[in-house]
C-alpha cells in the first residue's frame, strides 16, 4: 500500500486557539476514511488546514501528499496536485457563471500540471454529461455560481466539480448537512461513482447516516483535535448507539 496522505503530529490554531492537537492520519491510495466526532472536535478545521485556508496557523507536525510537503503549497497548487475539498457550505458568487467557473478551474489545474487547456465546447460537453448523471438542469450551469441554489443543488454542484476535476483525494466536509434523504442519495451516488483504485476519500461527518450510502474502509473518531479511536465501518454504528460522550471525557 502506498500512502497518498500522511499526517504526522499536526497541530493548528486559529485566533490563538489550538484546535488540532497532534493529529496522525494515513490514507492509502483508493481508501475511503470516515472521520466522525462531536461538534468542536476539529473536523472542519482539519479539512480547511488540508486545503490551505488562510487564517489557520500550523504550530506543529507535517503533512505529506503524494510524497510532497502539502503545507508548503498555496491552495490552488494543492488543488492542482489533486486535493479537493467539498465545502460544508459552498459559497455563492454573484456575477460568475457556474460554467465559466468550472472551465476556469479545470483549465487552471491542467495548465499547472503542464497539460493542454481544453476548449470551451470540450469543457461544456464534459460538464453536461456529468450534470446529467447528477440530475443538474443545464440551465443551472448558466446561473451565477450557487446563487439562489437550494442546499441540495449546492451539494450536487460540489459533486459535479469533484467529478469534473478528477482529484486524487476528496475531502467531504459534512456533505450530508442540510440535505434531505433524496438529495443525500443523489449526492452519495455521485460520490460512489467516483470511487476508484487511485482515488481516496476522507468523509467527515457528525452522523452515521451518510456512511450507509458512502461505505468507508476505515472509521476514525476525532476528539479534541486528535484521532482517539480507529476501526472498521462497524465503529460508525457503535458510535450511533453510544454517542461521543465517552471520547469527549477521554480527551478531557
Amino acid at each position, binding site marked *: 500500500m502506498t500512502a497518498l496522505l500522511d499526517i504526522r503530529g499536526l497541530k493548528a490554531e486559529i485566533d490563538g486557539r489550538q484546535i488540532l492537537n497532534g493529529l496522525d492520519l494515513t490514507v492509502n491510495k483508493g481508501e475511503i476514511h470516515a472521520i466522525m466526532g462531536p461538534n468542536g472536535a476539529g473536523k472542519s478545521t482539519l479539512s480547511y488546514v488540508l486545503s490551505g485556508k488562510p487564517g489557520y496557523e500550523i504550530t506543529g507536525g507535517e503533512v505529506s501528499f503524494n510524497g510532497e510537503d502539502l503545507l508548503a503549497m498555496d491552495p490552488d497548487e494543492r488543488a492542482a496536485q489533486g486535493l479537493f475539498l467539498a465545502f460544508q457550505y459552498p459559497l455563492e458568487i454573484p456575477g460568475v457563471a457556474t460554467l465559466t467557473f468550472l472551465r*476556469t478551474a479545470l483549465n487552471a489545474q491542467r495548465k499547472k500540471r503542464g497539460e493542454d487547456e481544453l476548449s470551451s465546447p470540450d469543457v461544456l460537453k464534459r460538464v453536461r454529461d456529468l450534470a446529467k448523471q447528477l440530475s443538474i438542469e443545464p440551465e443551472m450551469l448558466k446561473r451565477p455560481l450557487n446563487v439562489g441554489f437550494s442546499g441540495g443543488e449546492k451539494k450536487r454542484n460540489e459533486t459535479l466539480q469533484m467529478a469534473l476535476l478528477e482529484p486524487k483525494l476528496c475531502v467531504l466536509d459534512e456533505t450530508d448537512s442540510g440535505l434531505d434523504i433524496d438529495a443525500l442519495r443523489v449526492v452519495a451516488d455521485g460520490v460512489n461513482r467516483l470511487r476508484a483504485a487511485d482515488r481516496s476519500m476522507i468523509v467527515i461527518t457528525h452522523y452515521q447516516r451518510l456512511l450507509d450510502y458512502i461505505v468507508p474502509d476505515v472509521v476514525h473518531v476525532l476528539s479534541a483535535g486528535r484521532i482517539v479511536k480507529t476501526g472498521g465501518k462497524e465503529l460508525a454504528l457503535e458510535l450511533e448507539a453510544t454517542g461521543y460522550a465517552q471520547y469527549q471525557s477521554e480527551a478531557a
Partner: protein
Amino acid sequence: MNAELRPVKTAAEIGLADLFAAVRKDLPGGSSIEAIRSDAFDRFAAQGLPNSRVEAWRCTDLRRLVQDAKPLARRPDAAAKTAAGGAGAVFAGLHIRRLLIVDGAFVPELSDLAALEAGVAIRATVEALRREEMVLPFGMAGADPVAALNTALAGDGVVITVAADVVVERPIHLVFVTTGAAPAAMFTRSRLELGHGASLTLIETHEGPDHSDYQVNAALQMDVGDKASLDHIKITSEGAAALHIATLEASIGVGANYREFGFTTGGAVVRNQLFLRLAGEGTIASVHQASLLSGRQHADTTLTVDHAAAGSQSREVFKAVVDDEARAVFQGRITVQPGAQQTDARMMARALLLSDEAVASCKPELEIFADDVQCGHGTTTGALDDQLKFYLMARGIPEKEAEALLIQAFVGEVIDAVAREDLRDALSRTMHDWLKGRE
C-alpha cells in the same frame, strides 16, 4: 451672491486668463458668439478653478490638481492625422460610423461620412460657430466654472442631428484622440439633437499618449426628443498623465428612453460631470458607470439627475475598482421637483478597494420636493471577499486569476447594462486588458 473673498489667483488661473485674452479674437464665431464666450469667461474668472470648498467639487480640488494652463492644441497636421488613424481600436471591426476628433479638431477626411442615413446630418462644431449658431450656451451645467471655461474656449467638435422617427442602426463613434508630444489643451463642444421618436447609439472614446500631461475639457450636449431612444457609451482611457474633464448635459423628452454607460480606465485626473433632466411622463433614464483605477489615478463622477415633472424613472449604478493609491469619487444627486409625483429613482454606488491605500468617496443625495415618490440610494465600500477568493483557489484557480474573476463579477453588472452584444463584448475585453495589467 456669495461674498466670499477669492484667494490669490493660481498660476493656472492666470495662465487661463492670458490664454483667453490671447486667443479670443481667433476663436470661431462672430460677435454674438464672442459675447457669449466673454460672458462665460467672466463667470469662470469670478469663481476661479473650483477647490474643495465648492460642494460639487469637494473631492476634486482643481486649484491644487491643475498646475498650469497649457496652450491650445494646434489643428492637426499630416503627422498628427497619421498618428490618430488607429484610435478607438476598442470597437475595431464592428459596423460603426467613426468620426475622428484629433487634438480637439474634427477631421472629416479621417471620418466615415459616406452613405449617411436619410435624416442624419453631421457637421463640425467650428462650422456651426462660424454661422453664429447658438451651440454654446448650457442649461443645467451653466453654473459650473469648468463648463463655463469650455464655453469660453471651445474650438471644435461634432454636431449631429437625427430627424424625427429615424432609427439609426449603425452606432456613431466619436473618437477623441490626442497625439501631440508637447502638452496642449483641448476644448471641444459637441451636440446631439435626436428628434421625436428617433433612435441612436452614440459612443465616445477618449485617448492619448502616456508621456504627455495634456488637458482635455470636453463637453457634450444632448437633446433627446420625446419618445426617442438613446444609448450613450463613453470610454475614458486617456494617457497616464492627462487631465480629462467632461461635461455632459442631456435633456430627455417625455416618453424617451435614455441609457448612459461610462467606463473609465485612463487619465491621471478624470472628472465626468453629468447633468440629466428628465422631462416627465414615461421618461426613463439609466446611468451605469464603472471606474477601474490604479497607480495614483483620481476619477470623479458627479451626477445630477433632475426629475422635472411627474411620472419619470431613473436608475443609477456606479461601481469603482480602486487599486494602489488611486481614488474614486462618486457624487450623485437626484432632485425631484415640486409636482414631479410618481417619480421612481434609485441610485447605488459600490466601491471595491484592492489595496490599503486605495480610497473611495461616495456621496449620494436625494432632494425631494414632491410627496408621492419612490426614491432610494445606497452605497457600499469593501475589499475583495477572502472567503470567496479561497473557494476559487481551492478549485485550483491561482490568486491573481481568482481576484480577476471576482473583479469581473463586480463590474459585470454594469457592463451587462449595455444593450448591444457586440459593444458589450468589446467592453468586456477592455476590462480584461485592465485586469491583465494587474498580473
